């Protein structure tokens, strides 16, 4: 089992975004009245970048969603409802003029966001909804929202059919606890409350195209963890243990490990470098207990009334808190504790929002950082990019670079003639110096010794280096930018070269 679903083959299991709505229901009139005083409709005019031409933006597009008041002055919704926002409007029931809102905090890892409206009159007549807890399986829940942006608040009902860990589509790689319901899910309902007995038990956020009448909502423990995380003024993210584990259902494997008869536990297959577990847990440890809860052979613990993945215990914690394990190592029980850290990887692994792509153009050569967004923007899966993005960290962790720089394409000009068909050349070295990041490449290009005649870009994936005349390239650089309508030669998020 893994906490992070980094592999593309698992993407087939990913769920479609967008959410809730549907048929008439039987909410108690008082509950509906309470909810109506908290739920608002959102319109987000979002604009995302063109990852293949990173200096360009796509046309702005409106999308709708739902939010609800959780505290005086604060609206909770899904992160994907407010991502890449250029203007965000909040529509109050029965008030024709929308209010402009701003995003106060966003947790892309758990698809949650907090909004605020500056105009105090907006909050008149609105009342925050109280939080409940984890609902019981088969218990009924009501989902409220504005499917397809309709003017009237809609609500649907269903039962809780499953509570388990699953992939959150918005970040693409994170797996958290989610609750499955047979409540219909439609676009526009995302961010709306799922209510039980007048209390919020979740935020509707995604559906599953492969299953009929299946919707998902984010459970309260993850929402409350998000709110607690923000108490110090910044969002640190959901901590990650940083291990890959496998079940010990095979009795021979248990005997091989010398586990006592009747013992449970899961096997630690791999420790992610720079993770919370690095230096504390080891490959081949067996995790027997987490925070005093016995872990069974399938990796499950009894948490409240649930039998759920043992990661649930870490999920509720904050970065910097500790987590204790009883482990089986060297045929002995031992107790260890680790300090929780954020996941040990950068922005490039997740779907990226609210962040424009980095790039660097030199003499028509367009360099970009390899990210999940860039990879998915390619018409066809590119083998080298796929390996670099998904497999290098796993198979050759010691060779990982701070950032993988890709010569994405070449804007044709006479000085780069001969390379104009080049695509996705993963850069290893520039003039014999290993390239660590786009900013590093930028600094190398800006500090070339005066005697340098050639620019030599090499990749171990490609036996043909790119060799260009430095002076010809430099002399055409500005003209190339003008020809292709590019105003900025670079956009770098990292300030330092290394």
């Amino acid at each position, binding site marked *: 089992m893994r906490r992070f679903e980094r592999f*593309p083959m698992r993407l087939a299991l990913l769920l479609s975004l967008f959410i809730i709505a549907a048929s008439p229901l039987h909410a108690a009139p008082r509950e509906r009245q309470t909810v109506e005083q908290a739920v608002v409709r959102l319109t987000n005019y979002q604009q995302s970048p063109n990852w293949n031409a990173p200096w360009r933006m796509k046309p702005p597009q409106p999308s709708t969603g739902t939010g609800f008041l959780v505290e005086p002055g604060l609206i909770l919704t899904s992160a994907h409802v407010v991502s890449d926002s250029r203007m965000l409007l909040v529509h109050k029931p029965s008030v024709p003029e929308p209010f402009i809102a701003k995003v106060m905090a966003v947790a892309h890892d758990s698809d949650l966001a907090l909004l605020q409206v500056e105009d105090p009159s907006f909050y008149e007549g609105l009342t925050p909804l109280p939080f409940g807890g984890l609902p019981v399986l088969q218990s009924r829940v009501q989902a409220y929202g504005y499917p397809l942006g309709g003017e009237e608040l809609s609500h649907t009902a269903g039962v809780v059919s499953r509570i388990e860990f699953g992939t959150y589509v918005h970040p693409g790689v994170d797996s958290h606890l989610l609750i499955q319901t047979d409540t219909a899910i439609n676009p526009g309902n995302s961010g709306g409350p799922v209510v039980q007995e007048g209390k919020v038990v979740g935020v509707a956020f995604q559906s599953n195209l492969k299953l009929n009448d299946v919707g998902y909502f984010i459970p309260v423990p993850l929402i409350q963890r998000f709110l607690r995380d923000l108490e110090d003024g910044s969002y640190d993210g959901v901590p990650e243990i940083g291990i890959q584990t496998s079940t010990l259902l095979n009795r*021979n494997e248990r005997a091989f490990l010398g586990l006592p008869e009747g013992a449970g536990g899961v096997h630690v297959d791999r420790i992610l470098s720079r993770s919370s577990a690095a230096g504390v847990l080891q490959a081949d440890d067996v995790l027997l207990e987490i925070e005093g809860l016995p872990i069974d052979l399938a990796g499950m613990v009894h948490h409240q009334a649930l039998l759920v993945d043992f990661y649930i215990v870490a999920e509720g914690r904050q970065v910097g808190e500790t987590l204790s394990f009883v482990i089986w190592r060297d045929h002995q029980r031992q107790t260890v504790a680790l300090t929780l850290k954020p996941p040990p990887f950068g922005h490039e692994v997740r779907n990226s929002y609210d962040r424009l792509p980095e790039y660097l153009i030199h003499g028509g050569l367009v360099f970009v950082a390899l990210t999940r967004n860039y990879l998915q923007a390619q018409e066809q*899966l590119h083998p080298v990019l796929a390996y670099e993005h998904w497999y290098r960290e796993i198979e050759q962790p010691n060779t990982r670079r701070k950032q993988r720089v890709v010569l994405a394409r070449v804007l044709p000009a006479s000085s780069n003639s001969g390379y104009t068909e080049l695509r996705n050349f993963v850069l290893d070295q520039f003039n014999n110096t290993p390239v660590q990041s786009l900013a590093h490449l930028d600094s190398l290009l800006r500090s070339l010794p005066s005697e340098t*005649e050639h620019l*030599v870009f090499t990749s171990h994936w490609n*036996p043909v280096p790119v060799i260009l005349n430095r002076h010809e390239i430099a002399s055409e650089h500005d003209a190339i930018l003008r020809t292709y309508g590019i105003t900025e030669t670079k956009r770098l998020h990292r300030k330092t070269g290394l």
Partner: protein
Amino acid sequence: MGFAATTVSATEVQHAVFLRVYQQPYDWQMPWNRKPVRRQTGLALVTPNQRLLTTAELVAEHTLVEVYRPGDRYPSKATVLRTDDALNLALLEVEDNAFWSGLEFPGWGKAQKGEVQVATAKAPDRWEQQAGMLDELKVGYRLRTETWIPVLQVQDVKDSGPAGAPVLQEGRVIGLALKQTDETWSVLHATHLQQFLEHPPSNPNSALTHRGFLWTRVPQPSVTNHAGIPAATVGIWITRILPFGTGSQVLRPGDLLTQLGAWTLNADGQIKHPVWGSVLFDTLFLEELTLGTAIELRIWRNGREQTVTATVRPFEPNQALVPSEPAGAAPHYLVQGGLLFQELSLNYLRSWGSEWSKRAPLRLRLYKALEHAALETPSQRVVLLTHVLPDAINLGYQDLSHEVVEQINGLDVSGLEAVHKAFQQPQGKYHVIRLRPGADRRRLILPARALESANRRIQETFRIPQLQRLGS
């Protein structure tokens, strides 16, 4: 507009025969199984020594090869003596001496531009004579074996014809038809047919001589300038050296190859051929550069012009990390405790169908796509745990599939033979199978003592004729 086809009397055709081949492909996912029988038809050339020559693909995975002389009502049985997968050629034998009555090899001809004749048949008694225009010698890429082969191009043929049809010029054989697209036939040159016939059966390598390297155009003058090569120098840039073939022993990546023997290369790798005009230099391996001969290669290396001498060498199959097993080869496998081990091959990837490059598991596709990039530590083969046949002994592992095996009982496994040997050396009471990072689990344990009885049980439960089929 094509030449007209004319029906001919069966007795007029003496150099070709009709083949009906029953094939039963292997199931590479369940390698002890075969798929349903299918039938293909084609033609074969009568050779000088009373054998038959046809394409290897036509007789691949055959269960029965029936051969009809033109006009025969009943078939004779043919036996496949040997095949050359790179050249796509197969040699057949018919034991019945009476079969050869009325058949005759018409002699070898020398191909040149102009009209050609092809006798084709869609049934043993329905022969017709077609004509076409031979106008080009091209270098084709044979995807199955990833080789480059010079082939004759015949245009304006009226109908598509069966594979294995002999192509004649002035009554003599100049080639064998491989495939047809639209009105163009690709024809294997008679030189290749002769080289195959003369190739010692004991030699496992192909009869196809091969350049042994990959190359590209020089993208722009800055490249040669950076390498210290005079601006006016023309040649091709050597990018990768293959583990076989002519240039493999003497060339290096980064060399600029300007001349092979007496032939000067242009920037596109072409030479001036006396018959065929500007053609890729690979065409020299047809007649001018024969197996075993020495050839001087003029190159620029490290800013100096120099001459190196290479020996013309053949294509050697199965040198790739993910090889293409010969057409019809039975898949190798090994079952231990319900774990099915196989080597990753192009054949295995193709079991996902014609769109395997999109549908096969990504990591396996990447092994193929990136095999030239020397990504892996030196390894002969990628060993896969392809499936688990569910049994009590492997409970907990039954959902694993297509994982890459790293070690068994502490031994690195670089092929099925290594897997076989490793299972003879358990670690105490257990066999320890270690999968590569990225697998759903890294380690599997099988009990050594219980393995044999579990194997018998699994063999019976899943009706597996043999628990292993290994190479030689």
